[in-house]
């Protein structure tokens, strides 16, 4: 259990995908204007991350590696993710229309989200087994959610005071500066794993 706790805490707080690994920056900056869209997007990302890992890990370990085809990793993974996103969209539309109404608009954005492809590749780079990979994926998704939700709060304050900001600094620059400050606060978590478990 200790290993899982370490992986989970590292993924959510220490190696936060957005604020320390710079994965998934586009949705972080693009969809974080309102709390509900930030939350919806991160639920969709977490969901796809978990499913993508559940699909790519066995395919890599049991098909690509034994057949000596591991060089197809990138191409196979991105196709699996694209197909998965399509499939989820169709399935949600048909069976859970209420969820589709909430998450549907975010799904197509996820195919080209580097956080999803990133987590599937990093799971293998880190040498995680299947369960560890799933824990890491869900943790990374939750970390993404935490960053998105917190940042949407920060952003609403920033956007409310736009007229007090120098003209050249309005919009994207001030948003990035706010992200930098959020990122500083997450740096406080580095070393927490060592402190808690060693």
């Amino acid at each position, binding site marked *: 259990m200790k290993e899982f706790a370490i992986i989970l805490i590292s993924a959510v707080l220490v190696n936060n995908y957005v604020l320390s690994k710079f994965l998934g920056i586009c949705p972080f900056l*693009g969809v974080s204007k309102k709390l509900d869209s930030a939350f919806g997007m991160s639920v969709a990302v977490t969901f796809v991350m978990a499913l993508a890992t559940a699909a790519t890990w066995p395919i890599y370990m049991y098909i690509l590696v034994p057949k000596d085809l591991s060089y197809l990793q990138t191409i196979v993974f991105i*196709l699996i993710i694209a197909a998965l996103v399509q499939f989820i969209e169709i399935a949600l539309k048909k069976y859970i229309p209420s969820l589709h109404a909430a998450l549907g608009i975010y799904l*197509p*954005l996820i195919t080209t989200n*580097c956080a999803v492809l990133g987590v599937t590749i990093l799971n293998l780079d880190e040498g995680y087994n299947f369960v560890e990979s799933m824990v890491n994926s869900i943790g990374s998704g939750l970390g993404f959610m935490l960053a998105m939700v917190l940042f949407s709060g920060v952003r609403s304050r920033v956007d409310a005071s736009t007229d007090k900001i120098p003209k050249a600094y309005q919009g*994207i620059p001030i948003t990035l500066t706010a992200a930098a400050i959020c990122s500083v606060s997450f740096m406080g978590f580095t070393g927490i794993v060592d402190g808690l478990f060693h």
Partner: protein
Amino acid sequence: MSNPKTNYLKVLTNGILKENPTLVLILGTCPTLAVTTMAVNGIGMGVAAMAVLIGSNIVISLLKKIIPDSVRIPCYIVVIAAFVTIVQFLVKAYVPVLDSALGVYLPLIVVNCIILGRAEMFANKNNVVASALDGVGMGIGFTIALFCMGTIRELAGNGTWMSGAAWLGIANGINLHWDSPIIVFLLAPGGFLVFGFLIAAVNYLTKGKAIKKKEFGCAGCLAASACSAAQKGGCNE
């Protein structure tokens, strides 16, 4: 859409200045922030992405009549992923130092929106020569932006410049021998901060005319037409 009088010089310089993918169109933010702790990594990432971009632009332009509209995005992704993997192998084989410096961000060029964006916006509407030049221009623009970011972060954060550039034939670069450089520039917050400053500087110098995207979101994203959410008016709103 193909214009017989395409101004090739304009196509080439477009990506470097007027539509610089990083600093004007604000695309490909993930690698821009992640790998620019050293100037030389910025060059490495820029050149790797440029190689992929030129290759995918040429192939997609050649295949634009063959690829059916309904499956064009998956086709583009496959072509891009193939080029990324080839570049990855070449880097691993000939510049292993760069491979370990770029890490996971090298395969992640696949999802760099600059590349899919150019395929969708330019390569599938223009001829091969123009598409290749567009790839060169956008690639140079991307490389310059990453190099600037890397230069600022490395100088301020480590007191060095172009260190670790042995594979480029530059021995040791410059070392200012600072006792206590401003480490935060090398860390994640420094990435956001420097990127913000650079965009603000471009904004200021061009009096706000250059920046095409005032806000992040689908409307300004080149891949927007590939994204059904944009058509539904989803995304940011």
